[in-house]
């Protein structure tokens, strides 16, 4: 039932706004709204009850193991939420003069510094509001760098075919053409193909390492060398740093620019779709191009750098300082972890992934890349199950929901057929991992004995399998009064 269906004309019952409407007669009649907007009219109780009940239809970390690969669904500490929502932060207007917002700016400055240290970069900007915007900023900086060097012929960005869709989309948004680089069976980039592709037209290479296939790119130094030798720059898609945090730093691998998804590795909540933060870090030579604002320190006080301070900056990405509340949460998380905590993120994330991989192997599941170490995630392919039992990876995914587990990422990376990309994260206990593997095994058993049960799953959720095709064909994108009348 939609909130609109609880609405009755004239219903109020909430002391939430001025009880009467102030005079607007100074505004020309033709600029005023004539009708009232068709918003729901419900009591506060009805709204609270509706949205409380609605929330119960979600899986979430706070309710379920959620091993969604490439998404790093780790625990979001509750302290990060309450401390980022202290009144002193919540009521701060973004255009408040710097001397009135020193507490906030101090946090941001320290966050920049911690990110530099953890990533091995020279400087960070916190402006981008999600991973994709971080990518945009990164590629834009590469473009600005070449432009500053009058190196105008570099029209191409290289992207491995295993890359996340945002990488090629970003390159396009920055005006580049995209050239795909194939991936080998063992998960490494096809080095020869790369060698052939690199050249004077190469603006840069976007790489994720470990790749979305969940393995570490072993030739990273050679790759860095040929791209750099050709005058290109190296971009690190740092959406998922859980595999490396505390073990190896993108800067040390030779990357020139990186975006980080604070809403993954640094545990800010994903909120059912956002907000995130895609802070970008750069090596020395790209520093002048960082997006604004950046928080600088001098004489013991903090201030935001502006266009005057950074004339070569690629500019602003939002009206203010990006997703400040998200940044505060990441800051708090990093301070809670501290040095030794942060050094151990990759260790335990990787331990969990490799343990699950070993268990998957032991239980007879087929691994996409069986002979390598998993990073923070690994891939099972249901190719065999799909062809022999006619039960697809999607069926497995849906049936997992019935058994109380959020499904892993399905059908990504695109290279692996019928794949489940599984990422447990470091904050899950062994029981959860074992329980999940038991569930997978149970489903495989069901697929043999009662395949219907699996192919028509889920059965225990608020809705059964939804018709996505008709959703796209017969667009119903908003409630209309007539529709229910």
């Amino acid at each position: 039932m939609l909130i609109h269906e609880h609405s009755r004309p004239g219903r109020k019952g909430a002391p939430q706004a001025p009880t009467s409407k102030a005079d607007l007669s100074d505004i020309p009649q033709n600029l005023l709204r004539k009708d009232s907007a068709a918003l729901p009219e419900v009591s506060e109780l009805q709204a609270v009850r509706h949205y409380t009940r609605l929330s119960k239809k979600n899986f979430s970390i706070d309710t379920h193991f959620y091993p969604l690969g490439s998404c790093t669904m780790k625990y979001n500490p509750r302290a990060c939420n309450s401390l980022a929502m202290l009144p002193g932060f919540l009521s701060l207007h973004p255009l408040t003069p710097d001397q009135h917002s020193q507490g906030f700016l101090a946090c941001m400055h320290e966050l920049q510094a911690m990110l530099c240290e953890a990533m091995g970069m020279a400087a960070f900007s916190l402006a981008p509001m999600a991973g994709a915007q971080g990518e945009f900023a990164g590629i834009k900086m590469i473009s600005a760098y070449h432009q500053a060097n009058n190196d105008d012929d570099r029209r191409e960005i290289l992207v491995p075919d295993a890359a996340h869709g945002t990488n090629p989309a970003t390159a396009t948004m920055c005006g580049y053409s995209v050239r795909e680089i194939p991936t080998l069976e063992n998960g490494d980039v096809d080095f020869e193909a790369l060698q052939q592709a690199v050249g004077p037209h190469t603006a840069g290479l976007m790489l994720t390492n470990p790749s979305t296939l969940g393995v570490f790119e072993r030739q990273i130094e050679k790759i860095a060398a040929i791209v750099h030798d050709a005058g290109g720059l190296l971009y690190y898609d740092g959406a998922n740093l859980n595999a490396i945090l505390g073990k190896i730093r993108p800067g040390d691998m030779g990357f020139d620019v990186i975006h980080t998804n604070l809403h993954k590795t640094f545990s800010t909540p994903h909120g059912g779709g956002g907000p995130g933060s895609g802070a970008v870090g750069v090596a020395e030579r790209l520093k002048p191009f960082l997006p604004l604002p950046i928080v600088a320190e001098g004489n013991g006080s903090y201030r935001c750098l502006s266009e005057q301070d950074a004339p070569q900056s690629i500019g602003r990405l939002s009206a203010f300082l990006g997703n400040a509340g998200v940044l505060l949460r990441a800051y708090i998380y990093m301070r809670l972890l501290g040095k030794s905590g942060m050094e151990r993120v990759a260790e335990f994330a990787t331990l969990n992934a490799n343990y699950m991989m070993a268990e998957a192997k032991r239980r007879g599941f087929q691994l996409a890349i069986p002979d390598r170490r998993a990073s923070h995630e690994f891939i099972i392919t249901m190719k065999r199950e799909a062809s022999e039992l006619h039960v697809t990876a999607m069926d497995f995914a849906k049936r997992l929901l019935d058994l109380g587990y959020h499904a892993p990422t399905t059908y990504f990376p695109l290279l692996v057929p019928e794949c489940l990309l599984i990422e447990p994260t470091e904050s899950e206990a062994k029981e959860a991992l074992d329980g999940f593997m038991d569930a997978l095994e149970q489903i495989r058993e069901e697929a043999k004995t009662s395949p219907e049960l699996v192919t028509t799953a889920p059965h225990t959720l608020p809705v059964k399998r939804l018709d996505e095709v008709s959703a796209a064909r017969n667009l119903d994108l908003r409630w209309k009064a007539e529709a229910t009348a």
Partner: protein
Amino acid sequence: MPFIPHTEQEIDEMLEAIGIKHTDELFEEIPSHLKVSGLDGIPPGMTEMEISRLMQKRAAQNREAVCFIGAGAYEHHIPAAVWQLTTRGEYYTAYTPYQAEASQGTLQLTYEYQSMITALTDMDVSNASLYDGASALAEAVLMAVRGNRKSKSRRILLPRTVHPAYRKTADTIVSGQNIELVEVDYDRASGTLQLDALKQAAGDDITAVVIQQPSFFGTLEDVDAITDWAHENNALVISITNPLSIAVLKPPGQWGGKGADIACGDGQPLGAPLSCGGPYYGFLCCSQALVRQMPGRIVGRTTDVDGKEGFVLTLQAREQHIRRSRATSNICTNQGLVVTASTIHMAILGPRGLENTAAACHANTRELVAQLSAIDGVRPAFSSPVFHESALLLDKPVNEVLQALAEQNILGGYDLSSDYPELGNAMLVCATELRTEEEIMAYRTALQAVLAVETRHKEIA
């Protein structure tokens, strides 16, 4: 270790299952000379008690002040229920609703959001949110370029009455794509965009015209005439509005004969706290004709195999994870949680609540302007009617005045002089429904004193 539940015994069991002796072996594929020896620049960990103490101190360092700044972010009352519900774990810690059946909460709520924001804007379609108002403008521009098949020019008329930070952001984002953003000046007396100026800037092919209503100055543009003119010239109309204001102002969908084609803006006034500048969210609506040009996620209503109503992400073929380099945008993660808050906020306030709030903001600002303008050396910058925000001219440098006010914990307004030097000592002021009569009078008294002292200083000097 914080947030790592492993016991020694479990670690041993897991290592054994993997067939290794030590976790180091998990990283054996990494060239050892690349491995970091330790993150020495990271301070030691803190307990929750310690970080709480630190953050309380930091929060207190942000000096509390009475805020008369608007300029794109507005301090409103948010019902207590809004964030108590929004931060429920089921909303707060869910991912993007990729598994629809396990995400009906977020999906239905987003559908309700789309229904509400299209009702407010009176547009056909909304997406599930963009990052903020400024980046939403950039996406609107890109969308117009893709959507206006009649225009080849990729020229967008972007009036100076549009928020300066929005213009800068749009420039950053669209500049790589061979798009021309043409500045159009405003009329100095009225503080609004004039049709004549538009016509002059137009050239013979324009892709779209951007209109902000109320303008950055708070002035009210002649949206009907501009919209009709644009449409006559085969240009699309992109509106930027404060979504609270259109509870009482004519919504973009009703501008001129045909309405705006694309409506965007920042959702912050509908339930997002000021929060140092974010997270807010950008809303983006369009006419049915442009639906396939829409960037970002969209939720649709459908049915399950039993015919029961349910909700899914739809039209995904536009998006980067399918269309990759040819996607409508690279946006992936959006501002879902803020949309959650905003939807609950709108539901609790209802149409009357939003109207009364908008009207109260306007009345307070009117009162503020009246009080301040009564001071010697203060006068309204423009002659046009305004809504909710207004530009004032001082006879002293604005930054000095604001500085002096800030020392008394009054954030007096936004200094217009760096973005609009031609106006002289101009500042933008705003009083939302939260500002009380006493606060307004205190501002008046303080400003009066500041201006007087300044004068005296000068006399002495």
